[in-house]
C-alpha cells in the first residue's frame, strides 16, 4: 500500500457490529471477517477521501505509535483484503 493511495470499501463490503458476539466484523460477499481492535481501527478510518499516509499518521497520533510501524502493520492486513477484493484503491 503506497502512502498516496486512497483506500475505500467497495459496494457490498461493510463494517458491521455483531451484537450477538459483541465484536466488529467486515461483511463481504459470502464472507464475514472477524476484526481485532487493530483491524477495526484501521478500517474505521477508511472513508474514501483520505490517503493511506494520512490514515496511518492519524492512527499513529491517536495510539502514540510510530507511523512507520502502523503502516507496516496495516499494510499487510489491507493487502490481504485487496487480494480478496474486499478493499479497493483510488490511484
Amino acid at each position, binding site marked *: 500500500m503506497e502512502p498516496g493511495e486512497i483506500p475505500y470499501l467497495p*459496494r457490498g*463490503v461493510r463494517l458491521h457490529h*455483531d451484537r450477538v458476539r459483541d465484536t466488529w466484523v467486515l*461483511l463481504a*460477499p*459470502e*464472507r*464475514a471477517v472477524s476484526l481485532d481492535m487493530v483491524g477495526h481501527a484501521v478500517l474505521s478510518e477508511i472513508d474514501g477521501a483520505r490517503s493511506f499516509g494520512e490514515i496511518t499518521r492519524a492512527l499513529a497520533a491517536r495510539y502514540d505509535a510510530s507511523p512507520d510501524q502502523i503502516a507496516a502493520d496495516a499494510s499487510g492486513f489491507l493487502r490481504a483484503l485487496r487480494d480478496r*477484493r474486499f478493499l479497493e484503491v483510488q490511484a
Partner: protein
Amino acid sequence: MKADPANVRPPIAMLAELTHRCPLSCPYCSNPLELARQETELDTETWADVFRQAADLGVLQLHLSGGEPASRRDLEPLVTAARDAGLYTNLITSGIGLTERRLRALDAAGLDHIQLSLQGTTAQMADMIGGYRGGFDRKMKVAEWIGAVGFPLTLNAVLHRQNLHQLPRAIEMAVEMGARRIEVATVQFHGWALRNRDAMMPTREQAREADAIVAEARARLKGVLVIDYVPADYHSDYPKRCMGGWGSTGLVVAPDGQVMPCHAASTIPHLTFDNMRDTSLAETWYRGGAFQAYRGTDWMQEPCASCERKTVDFGGCRCQAMALLGDPAATDPVCIKSPHRAELTAQADAHAVAGSDLVYRVMPRDKVSEPAD
C-alpha cells in the same frame, strides 16, 4: 468435543430455500428428491420472522436460494425484511425470472450481492444442461443489468465431464462481467445428481487439468478475480469439510419451514427436523435432534474416531456416507482412510467412461410463476 449445547457456538450463515420451484431442470439439482409444494411454502411474514430470529441467533450472512428464488413474487419484500433484520443478503439465482425493473427494486430493497449460476459458456451447452431454451441469452442480459445496477457479482460455474473444457472461458466471462469472484464448483453427486454419474462424472485427467487451470488463473488474476474452487470430490484424497462441520456454522431452512443442518440432510432417514412454524430457531439450533446427531466428534466410528484430521474435515459428508454406504455415521468414502475408497475410485473411473443420456429434473410446470413483464 461434546455436543453439549453450552459448547455450541452461534451460526454464521443461513441458506433460505424460498421455494423449490424452478424453471430450469438441471440434472445435478441439489434440492431433495421430494420437493416442497408451492402451497406448503412459508409466507412473507413467516420468512421475515425467520430472518429476525436468525439475526438474533447470530447469523450474519443470509443466502436466498431455491429452487429459483425469483419464482417468489415477494422476493423484493423478503430482501427488505432481511436487511431490516440486519443480515448481509445474497441472492443465489439462475437469473431466470429477473428483469431490469425487478433488479432495480431489489437494489432499492438493499440487496447486498448476487451469485449468478452458469450452466455453460455457450447457449448450446448452457441450455442443454439447464433444460431451458433461451436461458443462456436471458442470463447474459441479466448479467448486463446486474452490472448496470452495480451489484457485486459472483459467477457460479457448475462443472462436470460435459462442460469442464469450458472452464477457461467461464473464468474469462467472469472477468468480462466485472465479477469480483467466481466459484468453480465441480458437481457434487447427491440427490438427483446420483442418477447422472454416468453422464457427468469427470475423468481423473479432467480433474487434474481443472486443478492446473485454477492454479494458473489464481496467480494471473490476483486482485482482479477471486477464485473459490470445489474440486472433483471422488478424485480427491480427503473429503470435504461439509458445512464447515455439522451444526457448527450454518443451517438451512427449507421452503416449508423445516430447519436442517445441510440442504441434503433429509436423505438421512432417521433424522427428524424441527419446523419454523412450531419451534424457535434458537431451540432448533442448540437442542434440535437433527443438529445434535452429528455435531462435534462423539458420534464418529473408526477410522474417524482416532484420526488426527477429525476436526479438520469432521469425517466428510454425512449425506454422502448415507448415499453410498447406507450408514450416515461412516467415514465419507472419499477419504483415503476409508475401507471403501478403492471401490469408490473404481466406480468413479467406470462412471467417467460410461456414456449415458442426462436425466433431467422434471418439475411440475403449472405452478411456476414468472413475472408478467
